Each structure stands twice: as structure tokens, then as C-alpha cells.
């Protein structure tokens, strides 16, 4: 593998470093918010090591901090991570071949970022090198940042007085904006959010967020309609 590292130019290294830095800031906020909200520090730290998918970590902790049960937290996190399924198929060639343990480690390093970097390249060797470099660098930065954030979070006293409960939705909003550039996605998200808000007074915490998946109904009808037409 050492020869394939040399195929990486400085532009890619620079880009990967920037992404690591940005994710480290998000990770530190995740650690601080989770601990500031009342969870013990081992929760955000083990979540980061074992789940290693920022969006679902935020979602699971958000559901728990809102008083939701463990099942709702796991379900929300897993639905969010379903996008890893098509991503895994997209980069399957990167992880193909080689010993089985390498496939297992590589799969754990699959993230939006490592997949996006790898898919920018056509040459299989380059692709593999970029995927592994980005994956390992992100894993290290993300977990260090989360642990650091958790330490800082446990030093914070009155989280409500500091407005930390507003920090969590603000993080979500900043992360979400790029995902909402398509009108159909925005519409589905608005329907889902309205359903979740309307259900909040009546359902146990955690479930209203899952109910938001009704926002997908128009998208399901649309795609089945186009599939029929194609036939």
C-alpha cells in the first residue's frame, strides 16, 4: 500500500485536512452537548467509537435528551444511517479483495466524507488510498474531538442558562442546509416536521420524529409512478 500513498497530491491532503477540522468542531459540539444535557461522558465517547456516524449520533442523543426511550433512539439513528447502504454499494470495489479483516475495518470507516472523496477518483489504487486516508484521519479526529468536547461539557454548570439547548438544533440546522437544496426534499421535510410537531403533545418522546417519515409518502408515490411508466 505504501506506493499508493505517493499517488496522493497535496491538494487532496489539504482537502482531507479541512474536512477533518470541520468535523472535529462538530464532534466537539456533540460531546459537549451530550454531556451538558446530562448524559455520562462514556455515552458520547463510545457512540463515536462504535457508531462513528455523526448525524445518527446527534439524532440518538437528541431523542434521549428529549426523554425518548432507547428503542426510539436506536430506530431514529438507524433510519438516518440507511444512506450508508447505497454508499457501501457505491464504494464496494474499494473494499473488495484483500483479507476479510481489512474489509471489516474498511466498512467501519465508511462515511459520507470518505465515500465522497473516494468517488472523485477513477483509478482504483488512488481511490483506495484516498478512502483509507480520509477514513482513518476522520476516525482519529472525530473521536479525539468528541472526547475533548465531553470533557469540556462536564465542566459546564447550568446548561440552560448558557443556552446550550439552542446549540443542538443550531448544529443540526447548519449541517442540514446543504441537504435541502432540492425542492422535493424540502417539501417532504416540511410535511414530516409538521407531523412531528402536531404529534408531540400526544405521543411519547422520540416517536414524533419517527412519525416524520410520513413526509416520504409523496416521494414513494412519485417513484412508484415513474417505475410503472418505465415499464
Amino acid at each position, binding site marked *: 500500500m505504501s506506493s499508493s500513498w505517493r499517488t496522493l497530491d497535496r491538494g487532496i491532503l489539504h482537502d482531507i485536512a479541512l474536512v477533518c477540522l470541520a468535523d472535529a468542531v462538530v464532534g466537539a459540539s456533540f460531546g459537549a452537548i451530550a454531556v451538558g444535557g446530562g448524559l455520562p461522558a462514556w455515552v458520547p465517547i463510545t457512540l463515536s467509537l462504535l457508531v462513528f456516524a455523526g448525524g445518527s449520533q446527534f439524532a440518538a442523543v437528541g431523542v434521549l435528551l428529549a426523554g425518548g426511550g432507547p428503542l426510539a433512539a436506536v430506530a431514529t439513528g438507524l433510519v438516518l444511517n440507511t444512506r*450508508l447502504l447505497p454508499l457501501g454499494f457505491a464504494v464496494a470495489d474499494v473494499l473488495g479483495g484483500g483479507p476479510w479483516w481489512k474489509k471489516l475495518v474498511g466498512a467501519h470507516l465508511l462515511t459520507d466524507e470518505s465515500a465522497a472523496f473516494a468517488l472523485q477518483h477513477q483509478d482504483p489504487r488512488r481511490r483506495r488510498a484516498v478512502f483509507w486516508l480520509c477514513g482513518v484521519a476522520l476516525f482519529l479526529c472525530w473521536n479525539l474531538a468528541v472526547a475533548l468536547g465531553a470533557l469540556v461539557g462536564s465542566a459546564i454548570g447550568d446548561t440552560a442558562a448558557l443556552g446550550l439547548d439552542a446549540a443542538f438544533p443550531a448544529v443540526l440546522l447548519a449541517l442540514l442546509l446543504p441537504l435541502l437544496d432540492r425542492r422535493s426534499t424540502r417539501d417532504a421535510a416540511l410535511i414530516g*416536521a409538521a407531523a412531528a*410537531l402536531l404529534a408531540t403533545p400526544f405521543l411519547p418522546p422520540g416517536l414524533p420524529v419517527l412519525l*416524520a417519515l410520513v*413526509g416520504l409518502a409523496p416521494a414513494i408515490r412519485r417513484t412508484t409512478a415513474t417505475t410503472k411508466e418505465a415499464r
Partner: protein
Amino acid sequence: MPLFTVLALAAGTFALRLAGPAFRDRLRLPAHLQELLSVAAPVLLVALLATATLTEGHGFAGWARPAGVLVGGVLAVRRLPFPVVVVAAAATTALLRLCGVA
């Protein structure tokens, strides 16, 4: 949170990650399923955003928190750096609470 929650989420997530590399020769995802999965994530996150901003338990969270999130949102739309967005949101909420706004 029990360790079970962390382990269940971790195991499920790993299975989703490994499915592609493990089954790529035998399985192909239908295009409309891929499309649906790509919309599911923002839908859930926006719902989480809405409920985390506006609700506390079964009721309204008060005005201070949504006001802070709104300030963060405006800064995010204007493409200010991520830390600025988050700190501004928290600071706005904290200031409003200091002034007696719940």
C-alpha cells in the same frame, strides 16, 4: 442511556455499512429505493430540528430557544463558519434568559 442502546445502534449501523462490500456481486439496489433512502435522512433531521427547537416534553419550549436557533439559522444561511453559528445561537438564548425571557 443503557449500553444496549449504543451497541444496538452500532451493530445496525455496521451491518448497513458492510452490506455493500459483502453483497455487491449478488445484489443491486433498485434506483427508487436509493432515491427514497437519500430523502429519508433530511426528513428525519428536519423533524428532529423542529421538535428540538420548539418543544420540551409534551409542550412548547418557550421563546428563548427558538429565537437563538433562528439567529443561528440566519448566520448559517449567510455561510458564516460553523462555530460562529453555534455560539451565536447559544449566546442569544442565554442572553434572552438573562433578561427574563423563558
